[in-house]
């Protein structure tokens, strides 16, 4: 082929010391540069800026003065901080556990030969398709004692008084968890459904011939086949849940009595007082949890 010959002529491996390797490296950097530049400007710089601010007494409009660990000391000494750590962990773990169990179940269900399967799959995406804050104020209205759907149903069924879903210590966190789950599970289902398509049918056939039970097939074929996607989705979803502000803010403002106080909401309160340094320290204090998590997931994924 003439073209090919010419190409090789034009790109001799040794011209000017430009090895193929070297050219690939340059091309590699060139291609990744737009993303790296964007992220350095838009994320990395603001990130370090925020870390710096967390070591200062910066208030809105004032000169920042370095105060070392003062903001952190103040934060750690507040009883609400440890409540916040605990609540954030509970919220994240509970929501992820629900999403995992129901996400698996629902995706297996929707993988069955059902009439109108596409319709069902489309329906699952609905909660994900609306702005988060709309989803959460809708849930606020569902939970509301006054004009709230759940209470209307309960009263119709003969309840004597309202159930205060968001205003009591016992129910507030579970209520926030359910709403957060509702909004977030479609992403899990769609990802799991996708991964299920990649598991070869022959595996199931072979297992069926061997007389494996449904549970065995699930445990030894389906679950390992989904291992990677589970880790990936778990990581992304954990980030989303831990950072989500609207769910708690719109439903309970962190109340009652801090029963649902999470990091983003706590940072928001500091901001209300124009204390940028304190607000930044709250957000930074949450990072180690993330870092550990990301580390574990990346390790697990690399094992594959």
């Amino acid at each position: 082929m003439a073209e090919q010959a010419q190409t090789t002529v034009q790109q001799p491996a040794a011209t000017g010391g430009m090895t193929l390797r070297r050219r690939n490296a340059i091309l590699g950097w060139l291609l990744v540069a737009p993303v790296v530049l964007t992220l350095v400007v838009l994320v990395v710089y603001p990130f370090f800026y925020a870390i710096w601010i967390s070591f200062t007494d910066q208030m809105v409009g004032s000169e920042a003065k370095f105060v070392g660990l003062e903001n952190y000391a103040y934060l750690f000494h507040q009883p609400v901080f440890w409540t916040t750590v605990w609540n954030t962990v509970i919220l994240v773990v509970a929501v992820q556990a629900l999403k995992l169990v129901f996400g698996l179940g629902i995706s297996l269900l929707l993988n069955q030969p059902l009439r109108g399967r596409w319709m069902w799959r489309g329906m699952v995406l609905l909660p994900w398709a609306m702005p988060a804050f709309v989803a959460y104020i809708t849930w606020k209205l569902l939970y509301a004692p006054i004009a709230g759907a759940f209470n209307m149903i309960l009263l119709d069924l003969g309840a004597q008084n309202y159930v205060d879903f968001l205003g009591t210590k016992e129910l507030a966190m579970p209520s926030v968890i359910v709403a957060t789950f509702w909004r977030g599970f479609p992403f899990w289902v769609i990802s799991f459904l996708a991964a299920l398509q990649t598991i070869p049918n022959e595996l199931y056939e072979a297992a069926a011939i061997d007389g494996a039970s449904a549970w065995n097939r699930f445990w030894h074929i389906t679950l390992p086949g989904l291992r990677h996607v589970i880790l990936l989705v778990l990581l992304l979803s954990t980030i989303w849940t831990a950072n989500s502000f609207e769910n708690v803010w719109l439903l309970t403002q962190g109340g009652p009595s801090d029963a649902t106080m999470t990091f983003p909401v706590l940072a928001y309160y500091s901001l209300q007082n124009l204390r940028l340094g304190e607000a930044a320290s709250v957000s930074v204090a949450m990072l180690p949890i993330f870092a550990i998590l990301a580390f574990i997931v990346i390790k697990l994924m690399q094992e594959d």
Partner: protein
Amino acid sequence: MLTRPSRAQRILNYTLVALLGVFILFPVYYMAIISLKTPRAIYREPSLLPDGATLQNYAQLFGEMDFLTNFRNSLLVATVATVISVFIAVLAAYSLVRLKYRFRNAVGRLILLTYLTPAALLFIALSVIMARIGLTNTLQGLMFVYLTFATPLSTWLLMGFFRGIPPDLEEQAMVDGATRLQSLWLVLIPLSAPGIVAVTVLTFTSAWNELLYALILITSPDLRTVPLALNYFITGDVFRWGLIMAGAVAAAVPVMVLYYLAQRFMVQGLATGGVKG
């Protein structure tokens, strides 16, 4: 899964699907009927049925409240942010998956880590940056800022897709005389098209629904995006439930259409490798 399910199994399946439908659709149904009620009816005659349904809220939304402008803004911002981020993410993902160079893994990890940073931590610095380059209160500024979350997610997911596609075909193309980039355009991208569609849809959805940055960066009423406009219907201490719900229903339409069109691609696309990593 492969054998025809028994009758009992089928009954169980449909029961479960119906339950799932109730769980998902009940809140949506409640939104829809609220959007059809007058403010007085919402409070004084609460009911689970659309009694006295009226289109008054929708009329007000698209008339007086000029919701179409918000629609246009959201569409513009989400589309441009998605196109740019998917485009540069394709290049970056290709580079990170197929080319070998120093610090490649470090760059890959950096991209993931940037995705971990909470928006609440970034927004003050971002508003400073936007002000310096004169993009506060502009849709361009918002497009730019949306790259903070759109780019890492797209890159990261695309890396998964590309990895799932064996390099043999591209190598074959290169043996046949294509350059690397040609092999990307002509071989890899067509092969991973479903994956790219899936990423596009996910990115578009997150940009379409974003509120925090819009709240901080956009001031002018004629530049408000859909979530921001809806947020303004909570006026001081009054929730204009009818308007909010009507807006939410209307805002879900483009996303649902998009999902409907992309549906086949979504499942197929995520399946071709993205989730296999």
